[in-house]
């Protein structure tokens, strides 16, 4: 089995992880559906560079090692 890629969804438990094998079409499809459902609810997706800097993600990339999904923000 190849290395697993992960969606980390920030939530009240800290985060919830959805992992998939990029070579498994069924797992990729399941992760894509989760990603797109959350994006429709206003979540924002980010990848993390090696130096720790975040970059924004516009669409699901099954090859991305780690994607962070952040719930919609509101003014405090």
């Amino acid at each position, binding site marked *: 089995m190849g290395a697993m890629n992960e969606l980390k969804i920030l939530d009240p438990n800290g985060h919830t992880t959805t992992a998939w094998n990029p070579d498994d079409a069924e797992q990729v499809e399941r992760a894509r559906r989760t990603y797109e459902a959350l994006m429709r609810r206003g979540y924002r997706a980010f990848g993390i560079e090696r130096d720790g800097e975040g970059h924004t993600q516009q669409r699901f990339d099954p090859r991305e090692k780690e994607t962070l999904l952040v*719930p919609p923000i*509101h003014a405090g």
Partner: protein
Amino acid sequence: MPAELAPRLPLWRALGRVLRRAAEARRRIALGAGAQRYAAHRSHELLLACLSPAQRLEFERTRAFTVRGESGRRYRIGFGTVANIEVLDERGELLYRLCAKPADLPTPAVMLAQKLMLESRETEFLRIAARHPLLVQAPGWQPSASPF
């Protein structure tokens, strides 16, 4: 059952019910506190994993870390969830504070969300965030004449 105890039985039953409910409430509170500690620990680990070495060092020293937006402006994110973002000028002096966050996340997860937004979706973040003026008076500041 002795006749003199009969009228008291409902009282003992009621007391038993109260004690059982109190024990159940204590158990639920303990479970909730444990879950909150676990969530805070997990989000703290994730935050550390997503910080640059310099940010991690600063965070370990001061419980705050500095990020740079796409505009080049620097922000210091402090440990907290309310007005915890300091907007800095070129010399690193505090200009004002910002507050914007996702709902219902542990504090380190809020800080991580703020870091990611400021580093790569700065304009959107600034559009949403509430701006909190400084409460500290600048040197030489004079109160204006009272209207009353």
